[in-house]
């Protein structure tokens, strides 16, 4: 009780006797989450507007005769003739490490029932992206824990890598695996006591998804011990379009706090297709002119200004973005997918055909690219995996001839065999990211022919066995690979000896 009294006394002390000026307006219409307001002559674009009953809105249409404001809350209590006023503030969300492990909505309010956030700072939801001189080239790796990606489509800290594919091809799974892998790396790094170790914190923004999917994702992160390093921003399908429109920007603001404070963060936007749809809905209700597929003319700017906020800053931290786009029937040439492909620094394309064939993750190596490339790879991965992409490309070209198995020359058969083994090697179950040192060992074994004597279908099981063997008996060697990040002759000899030891005990 004394704390409450002190709180009230502090508030009374803050109150000034000076007259407070407000700019006001009158609601003329409220429909579909948008209020049309007469007055508000001094309102600024994106300014927060105070509605009756504690409801907040933001001014999105500044017309000659009226202001169009999106209402971020319950519109059922609003009516024509209600007075509204400007707040003089832009929409901001709480930021800071206090948000880790918490689930919040697009406005920064906790929705997980764990009490107040306790955040001390707020950042504006809309912010201009860092300029050219503030940035630094991407050169530090961000390991997803997915072999197909880390070896052939490497991602760096500060990069924007799009995950694109049809529904049910494993896009969210790749993102969640990446978040889980960051948590695993964070724990190993913290335990090592290395003062140079930089953890990566994650932000998962769920836009327009089913609540059941969001719950399942949170449960998966919690089970993997990753939730303590993650902030969840939830704008499910049941939320109004305005909240779904704002959620990615709120997530970006949270990520920018880490970046500005010299730390590294990863943000997943799942997914920007639904984000574009929500923005289209708001724009149509605001009577803005529509263009292709009824999207507003600035739908490109919607995503470009969001994704440009992810960067690596000189002398500070980084924010890596994994936006997700859902395609229809594999059409990557549609409007929104081509927009986001042109904005990002590469894409990971997931194919339904590969998924149905059992190749999971269903990464299409031919269509996927990382524009940062090997600049974001450690030397160990380059040494063992540098030629894989080319070998897979050759395999794909020759695969059409596989049906004539008896008529192929020995070299072609060898290439097909090799490609088949690489494809089997890269199969990986969901929510099971693999550390980079284990990936290096697994692919090293491929390059040295340790899978050659096995049936192609048994390569996956053999690689699992190798990883288990190294994880349980060769931990020191793995630590050496991790810290040196390269395979010198000494380490290669130790790996060969360990693989020989494994082979002597392994039966397929």
């Amino acid at each position, binding site marked *: 009780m004394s704390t409450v009294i002190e*709180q*009230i006394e502090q*508030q*009374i002390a*803050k*109150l000034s*006797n*000076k*007259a*407070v*000026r*407000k*700019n*006001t*307006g009158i609601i003329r219409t409220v429909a579909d989450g948008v209020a049309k307001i*007469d*007055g*508000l*002559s*001094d309102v600024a674009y994106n300014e927060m507007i105070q509605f009756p009953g*504690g409801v907040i809105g933001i001014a999105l249409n500044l017309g*000659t*005769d009226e202001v169009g404001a999106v209402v971020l809350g319950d519109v059922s209590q609003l009516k024509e003739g209600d007075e509204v*006023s400007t707040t003089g503030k832009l929409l901001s969300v709480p930021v800071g490490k206090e948000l880790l492990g918490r689930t919040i909505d697009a406005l920064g309010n906790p929705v997980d029932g764990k009490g107040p956030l306790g955040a001390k700072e707020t950042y504006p939801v809309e912010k201009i992206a860092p300029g050219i001189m503030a940035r630094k080239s991407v050169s530090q790796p961000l390991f997803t824990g997915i072999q197909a990606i880390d070896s052939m489509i490497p991602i760096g800290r500060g990069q924007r890598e799009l995950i694109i594919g049809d529904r049910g091809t494993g896009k969210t799974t790749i993102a969640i695996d990446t978040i889980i892998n960051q948590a695993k790396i964070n724990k190993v790094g913290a335990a090592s006591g290395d003062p140079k170790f930089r953890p990566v914190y994650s932000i998962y923004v769920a836009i327009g998804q089913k609540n059941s999917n969001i719950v399942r994702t949170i449960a998966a992160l919690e089970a993997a011990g990753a939730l303590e390093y993650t902030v969840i921003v939830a704008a499910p399908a049941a939320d109004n379009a305005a909240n779904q429109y704002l959620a990615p920007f709120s997530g970006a603001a949270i990520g920018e706090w880490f970046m500005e404070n010299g730390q590294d963060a990863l943000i997943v936007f799942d997914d920007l297709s639904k984000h574009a749809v929500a923005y289209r809905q708001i724009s149509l209700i605001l009577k803005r002119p529509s263009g292709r597929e009824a999207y507003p003319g600035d739908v490109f700017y919607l995503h470009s200004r969001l994704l440009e906020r992810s960067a690596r800053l000189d002398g500070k931290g980084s924010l890596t973005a994994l936006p997700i786009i859902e395609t229809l029937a594999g059409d990557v040439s549609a409007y929104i997918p081509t927009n986001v492909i042109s904005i990002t620094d590469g894409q990971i394309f997931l194919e339904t055909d590969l998924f149905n064939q059992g190749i999971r993750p269903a990464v299409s190596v031919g269509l996927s690219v990382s524009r940062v490339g090997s600049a974001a790879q450690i030397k160990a991965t380059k040494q063992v995996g540098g030629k894989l992409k080319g070998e897979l490309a050759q395999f794909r070209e020759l695969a059409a001839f596989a049906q004539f198995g008896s008529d192929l020359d020995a070299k072609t058969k060898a290439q097909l065999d090799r490609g088949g083994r690489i494809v089997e090697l890269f199969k990986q179950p969901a929510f099971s990211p693999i550390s980079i040192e284990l990936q290096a060992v697994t692919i090293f074994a491929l390059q040295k022919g340790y899978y050659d004597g096995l049936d192609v279908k048994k390569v996956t099981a053999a690689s699992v066995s190798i990883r288990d063997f190294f994880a349980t008996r060769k931990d020191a060697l793995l630590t050496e690979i991790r810290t040196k990040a390269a395979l010198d002759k000494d380490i290669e000899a130790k790996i060969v000896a360990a693989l020989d030891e494994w082979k002597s005990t392994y039966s397929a």
Partner: protein
Amino acid sequence: MATGKPQIQQLARQLFTVSLVDGRLSNEQVAGVLAYIEKNHAANAVALLNAYQRLVAAEVAKGVAVVEHSGPVSEATLAGIAAGLTKRYGRPVTATAKANPSLLAGLRVRIGDDVYESSVSGQLAALSASV
């Protein structure tokens, strides 16, 4: 002929512009506009007049400060408020008093879209919102 809402709004704005002389509303011009509407836009007169009325009311409100008070307020106070707002906005402002017991004490001044809150009830509302 203006039929849709945007066209009516545009026409109302044009008629409002005509109603101004040296930046201020002219009674003669307003009377002329009303006659014009009656003669030439009888079909859409209601919508057009409503839109025109809102623009005129907003313009009038910019020149009249409504001083809401709960206790007595003197003519000198009203004159001082009018002078202060005239200086601030750079246009002639007159002040009118309006009793509002719900303020408890202090004043609330409305001019155009601006509200100057200096009442006890306003401060209590701000206190309850912040706690």
